[in-house]
């Protein structure tokens, strides 16, 4: 029992990283109704920029974080221009496929430009173990969990208490009507993409400084974990993304403890499989889907 609880605590910590990634995916999906598969690889390139600053310029944590975020935004803008703005609004599959192509492209760029491939990523959080009763947690993981919750609150305030947030929700809810209100849809979508890139950059920075190294495979890893966490929680739902990420973390931590690394990776897919059968809309998405269906029938 002690083991199980400890695993759940560890899982919450890992899960907060997944939750941050899922937030990025779910924002793009919620606002644009499209999947951005190259989200993970954009973060990976951003992280290399952070590492470069760390190795060549300064070991200041804020500078490295800033470099990671800015480079992620730059790659994010590149992806937005090619996969989203350049493609017609209703061609959702086309933009998903092109974001897959950009994923491959970004990964190849990383493989060719970076001869050593694996680079150290600075561990900025001093690892101290915090004990409470029979359980313990690493301080950097607690920081990550708290930051994730803080970002969720900030995002909520942005979306529901500010003017750009109102515009963003309008565009996502009914792009035609928002155009009639005089909202410039493509500017707002650009803003959403920039916001998502900031989230992604922060997620990458936090996860990698706990991992202390970055490889070109980080992009694949981040896309998979983020997508699974988003689908578990319910696509397009912000609290769903957080719940999905934490649930994935907890299941993986237990699977790892009781079954080893192979079982851990398997458990993520198994969890998704079960969720898609039992609640295809995810933990939170289901309700929204059902409400929409009821409203459609009434109209």
């Amino acid at each position, binding site marked *: 029992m002690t083991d199980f609880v400890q695993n759940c605590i560890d899982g919450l910590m890992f899960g907060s990283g997944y939750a941050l990634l899922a937030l990025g995916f779910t924002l793009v999906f919620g606002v644009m109704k499209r999947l951005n598969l190259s989200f993970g690889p954009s973060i990976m390139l951003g992280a290399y920029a952070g590492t470069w600053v760390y190795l060549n310029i300064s070991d200041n944590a804020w500078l490295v974080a800033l470099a990671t975020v800015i480079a992620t935004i730059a790659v994010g803008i590149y992806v937005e221009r090619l996969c989203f703005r350049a493609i017609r609004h209703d061609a959702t599959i086309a933009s998903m496929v092109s974001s897959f192509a950009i994923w491959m492209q970004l990964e190849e760029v990383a493989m060719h430009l970076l001869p050593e491939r694996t680079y150290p990523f600075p561990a900025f959080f001093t690892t101290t173990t915090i004990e409470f009763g029979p359980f313990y947690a690493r301080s950097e993981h607690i920081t990550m969990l708290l930051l994730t919750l803080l970002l969720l609150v900030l995002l909520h305030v942005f979306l529901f208490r500010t*003017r750009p947030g*109102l*515009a963003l*929700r*309008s565009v996502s*809810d*009914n792009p*035609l*009507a*928002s*155009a*009639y*209100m*005089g*909202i*410039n849809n493509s500017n707002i979508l650009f803003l959403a993409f920039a916001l998502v890139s900031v989230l992604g950059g922060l997620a990458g920075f936090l996860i990698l400084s706990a991992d202390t190294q970055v490889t070109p495979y980080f992009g694949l890893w981040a896309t998979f974990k983020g997508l699974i966490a988003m689908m578990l929680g319910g696509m397009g739902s912000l609290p769903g993304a957080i719940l999905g990420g934490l649930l994935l973390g907890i299941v993986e931590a237990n699977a790892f403890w009781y079954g080893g690394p192979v079982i851990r990776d398997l458990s993520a897919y198994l969890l998704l499989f079960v969720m898609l059968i039992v609640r295809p809309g995810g933990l939170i998405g289901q309700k*929204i889907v059902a*409400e*929409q269906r009821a*409203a459609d029938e*009434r*109209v």
Partner: protein
Amino acid sequence: MLKVENIVTRYGAIEALKGMSLDAQHGEVTCLLGPNGAGKTTTMFTIAGILSPHSGSITLDGNDLTHQSAPAIVRKGISLVPENRLVFPEMSVADNLAAGAYCRSRSERTAINQDLAEVFDRFPQLKERREQLGGTLSGGEQQMLAIGRALMARPKILMMDEPSLGLAPLIVDEIFKIIQQLNQEGVTILLVEQNARMALKVAHKLYLLEQGAVTFEGSPTEMQQNELIQRAYLGAGAD
């Protein structure tokens, strides 16, 4: 007030408007009638800046609006109640109305709040349901929300695209009462309707649009006296 002169609007190679003109007078209800595919909605879209005309001109109180962007046109004082209402289904009633005032600057905050109170006075049902999601309202309430949302931009001219579409007859009567009331309060209205009987009741001036051009214009009495129109659009002999 709003003057549309000889506009030609194309969808690719298809010419939807072939030299359409209309003139909406201040304080009046101007109505566009016509069969499906005549170009009524296209006219609205062209005025609102959603579509750009190939040639011709659109002016509001002498200001040229012809190739302005949609946000600029909303700011100049034209707002649209779209066909099928198009409320924001997953946003609250209050947020739907706030989105209607999106184009107004922050300095107008007091005026915006005042307009919000006015909309709630006009439509008490919306006030009761201010936290409810737009998609959960009935058809008539959604139409009121769409009208309220357009009023939140404090327009000089309100364009309404088929406000009676898909509503029960009783609700249609109510919507037309609202239109008349708005007009009596001094709101200039450009109305697109298929419901000719209702249109004749509220309009000061009517335009009949067929295949992208105006084929008749005149007052409701002139229109009712025209035998051809009687037969084609009003079902002469029915009553």
